[in-house]
C-alpha cells in the first residue's frame, strides 16, 4: 500500500521530482537555456477570458511567462525554457488550480509544425523514462494523431468554425461534443484554430481564416497550447485593442499593454519563432493515471484556504 497523507500519495512527490529532472535533461541536451522571468508583473496579458490575481501597487501575479520570454528572445536568445508558476483568478476545479506549474519554451526558426514534433518527442521521452518509476510501459505511442479544428467540428458537430464563426457555439460544442468524441484517443493534437482564437499566434499564410496554433490532449485533457509566434507589431496591437475592448464590454477591468513587448515587435527584434506552454500538473496527472489535479499538487488551493486543522 502506498502511504498517503490527507489522501495525497507520497509517491507523487517522487514522480514530480523525476518529471522535472526529465524535462531539464531533455532541454539541456538540446542546447536550451533555462531562464527566469518575474511572477510579479505590470501587464498580465489582455486575454478576455484570463483574469489575473491582483497584487500590491498596480501589480499582478503572472498569468503566463509568455511576454517576458518573448522579450528575452527579442534580446538575442534563441532557445529558452522555463519552469515556473502561473496564477489565474477563479480557476479551480477538477482540472484547474488557480496557482499551477507551467513549462514554457521558445525556439527561433521553428514553426508550429516543428513544435508539434518537438512536443511529441518530449512527451515520449518522459513517458518512456517515467514508465520505469510507474512500473508501467509507455502509453503515448508515436505518432500522435493530428486533427485540424475544422475537420473534427465538421465530423462531429457538423459545422465549420473558420467559415461560420460563433464563439459561444464553438466552446460549447468543443466541450460537449468534440472533446467527448475524441476522449479515448490517448494522445492527439488539435491544430489550426480559427483566426478569432489566434491570440498571439500567426495566421496561416495560405488560409488566414485559421491560425498556426495547436493544443495537445493527453487522455482527453488539454495539456499544452503552442503556436508560431506573431511577429507583426501592427497586427499584435490590433489584437490587444480588440481583446481589451472585449474585456471592457464584459465589464472586466482592463489591463495595461506591455509597451516593451510591443516596442520590440515594432523594432523588428522578435525573429520567427515558435513557443508553447505545458501544464506540468496535468501532464503529471496523465502520466500517473490520476483523475483530479488536486491529486498531483501537495497543497491545492482548496486545502490552502481550508481553515480546518489537519495533518501536514
Amino acid at each position, binding site marked *: 500500500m502506498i502511504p498517503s497523507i490527507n489522501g495525497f500519495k507520497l509517491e507523487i512527490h517522487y514522480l514530480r521530482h523525476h518529471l522535472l529532472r526529465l524535462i531539464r535533461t531533455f532541454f539541456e541536451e538540446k542546447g536550451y537555456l533555462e531562464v527566469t522571468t518575474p511572477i510579479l508583473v505590470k501587464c498580465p496579458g489582455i486575454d478576455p*477570458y484570463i483574469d489575473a490575481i491582483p497584487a500590491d501597487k498596480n501589480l499582478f501575479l503572472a498569468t503566463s511567462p509568455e511576454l517576458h520570454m518573448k522579450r528575452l528572445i527579442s534580446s538575442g536568445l534563441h532557445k529558452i525554457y522555463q519552469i515556473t508558476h502561473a496564477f489565474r483568478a477563479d480557476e479551480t476545479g477538477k482540472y484547474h488550480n488557480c496557482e499551477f506549474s507551467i513549462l514554457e519554451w521558445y525556439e527561433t526558426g521553428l514553426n508550429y509544425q516543428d513544435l508539434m514534433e518537438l512536443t511529441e518527442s518530449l512527451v515520449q521521452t518522459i513517458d518512456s523514462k517515467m514508465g520505469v518509476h510507474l512500473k508501467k510501459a509507455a502509453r503515448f505511442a508515436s505518432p500522435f494523431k493530428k486533427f485540424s479544428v475544422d475537420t473534427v467540428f465538421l465530423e462531429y458537430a457538423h459545422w465549420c468554425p473558420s467559415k461560420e464563426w460563433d*464563439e459561444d457555439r464553438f466552446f460549447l460544442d*468543443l*466541450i460537449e461534443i468534440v472533446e467527448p468524441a475524441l476522449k479515448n484517443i490517448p494522445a492527439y493534437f488539435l491544430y489550426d484554430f480559427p483566426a478569432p482564437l489566434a491570440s498571439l499566434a500567426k495566421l496561416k499564410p495560405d488560409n488566414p481564416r485559421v491560425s498556426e496554433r495547436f493544443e495537445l490532449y493527453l487522455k482527453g485533457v488539454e495539456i499544452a497550447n503552442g503556436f508560431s509566434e506573431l511577429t507583426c507589431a501592427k497586427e499584435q496591437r490590433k489584437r490587444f485593442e480588440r481583446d481589451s475592448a472585449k474585456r471592457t464590454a464584459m465589464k472586466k477591468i482592463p489591463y495595461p499593454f506591455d509597451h516593451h513587448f510591443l516596442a520590440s515587435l515594432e523594432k523588428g527584434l522578435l525573429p520567427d519563432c515558435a513557443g508553447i506552454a505545458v501544464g506540468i500538473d496535468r501532464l503529471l496527472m496523465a502520466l500517473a493515471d490520476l483523475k483530479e489535479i488536486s491529486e498531483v499538487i501537495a497543497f491545492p488551493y482548496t486545502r490552502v484556504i481550508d481553515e480546518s486543522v489537519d495533518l501536514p
Partner: protein
Amino acid sequence: MYEINDIRKNLKVEIDGDPYIVVDHQFVKPGKGNAFSRTRLKNMITGNVLDRTYKSGEKLKPAKLEEHPMQFLYEQDNVYHFMNRETYEQIEMNESQVDKAKDYLIENLNLDILLFNNQPIAINLPTFVELRVVETEPGFKGDTVSGGGKPAIMHTGAKIQVPIFVNSEDWIVVDTRTGQYVERAKK
C-alpha cells in the same frame, strides 16, 4: 443572483418555476475560452434530475426556500393540517406532498416544513418518533437464532419490523430515517 463561480453542492436555485438543488458540478474551461459549469441538479419536488451547462456570465436565480417549525394537527379526507409554531398560521398538504412522512405523523408532532415561494414542498421529521402498535401476532415464533422479528402495524398505518416480545398496544420508538425499530417507548 448567483454567478457560475457560486455554484456549489447543495446550492438551491429556481429553474422554470421549480426549486432545484445542485447535486454535482464541474468547472470546465477550454484554453483561451470562456469558463463553463457543467451542473447536475435535482428537482426538489419531483426528484427529477437535470443536466445543465452554464456559461460564465450567466446568472442563476436563488430558490426562495424557508424552513418553518410546524406541528401536525390532524388528517381529514387525505388532507393533512399543520400549524406554524411561531405564527399559529395553519397550512395544508395533500397525501402526495406528505409522501412517506405520513407513516410518522402522529397528532401534535413537532416537525419542520420546507416552503418554496410559501408553498410547502417537504417535511423534515424529527429523527425519532413514538408510534403505537395496533396489530401484531402475539407470541409469534420468529427466527430467534438470527434475532429476526415479526411484522407489526402502527396506528399511523406504518408497517414496521419489531422484535417478538412487542405486543399490540405497546408504544415503540422508530428511526424516521430508516423506518427501523429502535426500542420500546418508556411510557
